[in-house]
């Protein structure tokens, strides 16, 4: 076992080490900073660096998700949450928590001790490389006809897990709704916002035009392209990195960008909160519905083979496509629910916050 640690250091090892030390540096900076705005930005940087590291480790799908979630959406959501709270962390007295120190040291020592038993990086005999991983690689092509093994494992072999994850995302959205509310009754809200817009039309257009003309023009060019890119990521997920999770985040971020530039009311008129609420549940319904259709056709829950009895692999492709659409709808809707939930507490993103 000891001999395997003496692998020759190649360029990729050096790059991995650089990324890991950058992560440590960013982590320490996050712990030490008191300015919450800087902390949010640095957590975005942390996600971006780890996404780059995942690319270097050949985990492209994970890197894609990490970049979309960590560096993209969660930064915006954190900023939205920060609108409701203070910019600075509450000052705490530096005190010595000896018990905490002991717990941290003991956990760290246990983790370090556990690494000795871990297989070395790229070990062909390690569990994920030897048994089930190899089996997935062998069987995915003939059984599902989907070139991207990650998509096949996620949506077909581990379809139950992904169904659970989609439900978890819906539950997260419901939690935010329960805490922050739905942003007021929809009909009343619409009336007031329309009336307000009419009253403030000249004024608002003057202010917005004066400050954000470059941003407005660029984002108007970009938003349709971003949404098309989301569709590409969605439907190309069978062949390359991508899929419902990433595409949902990308489409949600396009709408959030619209809200940031043109105001939350304009975004709510384009994508009404009621539609978003419907979508969050609809996605899970689509996912579960595919499973129920399989049951009705005489198969097991989420057994896509039954969708096309003559060509089981075509049935798999069809099932994976619909399931990914369900994931897309739920993820995009829940991200927007959370965003609307945070920002509806403020009447608008006022110009001072820029």
């Amino acid at each position: 076992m000891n001999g395997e640690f003496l692998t020759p250091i190649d360029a990729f090892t050096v790059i991995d080490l650089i990324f890991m030390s950058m992560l440590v540096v960013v982590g320490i900076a996050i712990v030490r900073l008191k300015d919450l705005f800087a902390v949010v930005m640095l957590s975005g940087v942390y996600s971006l660096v780890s996404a780059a590291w995942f690319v270097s480790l050949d985990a492209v799908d994970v890197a894609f998700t990490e970049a979309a979630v960590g560096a993209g959406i969660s930064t915006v959501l954190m900023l939205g949450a920060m609108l409701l709270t203070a910019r600075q962390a509450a000052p705490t007295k530096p005190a010595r928590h000896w018990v905490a120190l002991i717990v941290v040291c003991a956990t760290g020592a246990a983790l370090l001790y556990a690494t000795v038993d871990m297989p070395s990086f790229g070990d062909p005999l390690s569990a994920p490389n030897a048994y089930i991983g190899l089996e997935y690689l062998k069987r995915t092509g003939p059984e599902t006809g989907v070139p991207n093994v990650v998509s096949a494992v996620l949506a077909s072999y581990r379809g139950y897990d992904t169904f659970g994850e989609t439900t978890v995302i819906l539950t997260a959205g419901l939690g935010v709704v329960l805490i922050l509310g739905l942003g007021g009754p929809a009909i009343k809200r619409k009336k007031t916002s329309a009336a307000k817009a009419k009253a403030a039309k000249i004024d608002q257009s003057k202010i917005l035009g004066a400050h954000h003309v470059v941003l407005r023009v660029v984002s108007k060019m970009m938003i349709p392209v971003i949404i098309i890119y989301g569709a590409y990521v969605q439907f190309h997920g069978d062949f390359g990195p991508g899929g419902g999770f990433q595409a949902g985040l990308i489409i949600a971020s396009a709408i959030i960008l619209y809200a940031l530039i043109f105001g939350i009311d304009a975004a709510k008129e384009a994508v009404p909160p009621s539609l978003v609420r419907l979508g969050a549940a609809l996605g899970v319904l689509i996912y579960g519905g595919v499973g129920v259709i399989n049951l009705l056709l005489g198969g097991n829950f989420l057994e896509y083979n039954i969708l096309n009895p003559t060509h089981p692999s075509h049935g798999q492709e069809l099932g994976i496509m619909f399931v990914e659409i369900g994931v897309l709808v739920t993820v995009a809707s829940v991200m927007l629910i959370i965003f609307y939930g945070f920002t509806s507490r403020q009447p608008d993103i006022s110009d001072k916050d820029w």
Partner: protein
Amino acid sequence: MSELLHMLDILRPYVAGIALLSGGVIVLIGASGVLRLPDFYTRLHAAGVTDTLGTLLVLLGLILLSGFTLLSGKLALVGLFLLLTSPAATHAVANAAHKAGLKPRLGTVQSQPPLDASGDPS
């Protein structure tokens, strides 16, 4: 004609290497500028150079290396995206700072008050 194309094909990796290297150097210059320049606006200027010229040169080098393929088309799209978004982002940040009332440091270094750790004039 075909000889000329052959010549260009031989030259391709070298031109790509030059583009990649100069892009890297420009990114390095931008990074040192972000660290060394005196105030927010000049630092932003250095960061903007990194975003546009540095990354675009790196992308150009990668496009030349990958040849006439789908990959180079995707890289060109990434370049177009960066060309549109990074100046807009730089503009937004500078505009926000200006709106928030941050004044640029003017005049010589000697006539200025010393900076505190965060880079704001104390």
